[in-house]
């Protein structure tokens, strides 16, 4: 070692930082490990290092998952979550890109006013008006249907703004030459604008998927039939349906986190483009 002092410093800081990293990891490691062992072992191991290790018998790993699947319609909840999340994602990409296109590539009377109004709605805190939103959904007669979960989450001023910005950067020459060749406005949107806006689509898509997958309060309000629950609502339901087995709860927590891990792994760079926008907890 050329510089023993520096070497010692690196070792000490690395150990310290590893401890901090473990502080962030331990709940998740504990969650997964606990889902991979029989109920009794969780309580027996709680005060030693084995708490963070799965059962030593690999054939016991599936026990909690098997009983969970036998007791609850987990596959159904997963399918519900996927339907809602993909519905919101597809709707969000289409509706918001259409509006972004409308604001970007057309000039019309009242354009500035309508766009200003849209931007102004960004300040309305949606969390405070859920009760009145619920009234609207009730009035529309779509309570306890997938539409009640999907429709209210589709349009978002911020995503419209994002698409508009992206379309603004596409030169008008492209559009004019397409028009010369007789392409209608929708053809231009579908064949020229959207293929060029793939990064914006990916960003909006990723953010809406995660937002919808994680949504808890709204589906809880508008769905009365537990067969229609998405995973997030099912979790708390399972956690309060007696008898509650801790290893099964940990299994459902793990199951509902896996799709998010996949999304983060594949779409992380699109998420960074939306950074600082979605805020902290509620992504």
């Amino acid at each position: 070692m050329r510089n023993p002092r520096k070497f010692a410093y690196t070792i000490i800081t690395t150990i310290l930082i590893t401890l901090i990293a473990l502080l962030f990891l331990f709940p998740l490691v504990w969650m997964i490990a606990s889902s991979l062992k029989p109920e009794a072992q969780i309580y027996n191991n709680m005060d030693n290092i084995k708490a963070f290790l799965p059962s030593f018998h690999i054939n016991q790993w599936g026990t909690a998952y098997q009983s969970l699947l036998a007791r609850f319609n987990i596959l159904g909840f997963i399918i519900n979550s996927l339907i809602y999340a993909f519905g919101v994602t597809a709707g969000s990409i289409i509706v918001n890109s259409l509006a972004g296109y409308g604001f970007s590539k057309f000039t019309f009377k009242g354009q500035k006013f309508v766009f200003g109004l849209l931007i102004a709605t960004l300040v309305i805190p949606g969390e405070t008006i859920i009760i009145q939103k619920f009234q609207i959904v009730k009035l529309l007669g779509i309570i306890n249907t997938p539409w009640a979960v999907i429709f209210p989450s589709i349009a978002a001023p911020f995503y419209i703004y994002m698409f508009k910005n992206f379309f603004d950067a596409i030169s008008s020459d492209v559009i004019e030459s397409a028009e010369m060749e007789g392409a209608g406005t929708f053809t231009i949107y579908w064949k020229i604008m959207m293929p060029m806006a793939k990064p914006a689509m990916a960003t909006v898509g990723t953010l809406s998927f995660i937002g919808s997958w994680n949504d808890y309060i709204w589906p809880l309000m508008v769905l009365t039939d537990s067969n229609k629950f998405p995973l997030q609502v099912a979790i708390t339901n399972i956690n309060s349906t007696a008898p509650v087995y801790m290893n099964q709860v940990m299994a459902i927590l793990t199951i509902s986190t896996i799709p998010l891990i996949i999304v983060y792994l594949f779409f992380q760079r699109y998420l960074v483009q939306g950074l600082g926008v979605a805020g902290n907890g509620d992504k």
Partner: protein
Amino acid sequence: MNNILAKRNNQAWWYIFPALLLLALFLFIPALLSIYYSLTNYYMLAPQDRQFIGLLNYINLLKDPVFWTSVKNIGQFVLFVMPIQVGTALGLALIVNRKRPWNTFFKVSFFAPVVVSLAVTSVLWLYILNPDQGLLNNLLVKLGLHAQPLLTSPKQAMFAIIGLSAWQGAGYQMLIFLAGLQNIPTELYEAARIDGASKWERFLHITLPLLKPTSLMILTTTFIDAFKLIIQPMVMTQGGPLNSTITPVYYIYRTGFTDRQLGYASAMSVIYGFAIILFTLIQRKITGAGGDQNA
């Protein structure tokens, strides 16, 4: 030619219409409804008895001890979660911004809680913080410390929620800080080093000032988001014990949805909604983000 152009431009409304319709239904109209309902005694189960009662809901609200408790609780939450979460995020960003062995492992570890949803976080921590059989108390006892009541103690419950909220969100803000740190030109540090500035001086005179816009943005968005706290207390404590974790948004939900007092809940929505809008406008002013910038 002008006619063709006008005809083309009129098509714009077709593209904007779906978004406008959805926003009107689920944002504009609910916001307007909340103002209208707030002036009535609307009870969800007896809509035919709805009467205009003026400002009575607002007057009752000002005299409602639970509302003021919820305001006090959210004040406590914001006051503590801000420095803890943002400070942690900055510390983590500084850690992973330096080249060191296992850097990717650290970055992934710090970010890992972000991947978990709030519902999952809340249920998971329910088991970690459980007073009798929870993981944390088992570890505390093992270390020779006293077990803590945490979620069942009116004094500790909010702090438990503050802790897990910071744990969950810090990794996300770490990424934003990291982006800010990586925008600082390295030449500045080298020049300062040549001038004999110590590590601490370099942090104080280069890193902090250049990180100011990022920090302001993170601080203000955290501040506003913190006011919307609901899922953690809803899942973990149902606002208890003794209303010590009830928050305004949760109280609105409970009054309007569980108790079906739509008029009263609407008055609360209006007051609290305007408070958040006010904070948001102040935030825009501070961070210099105009209306046509981002949210």
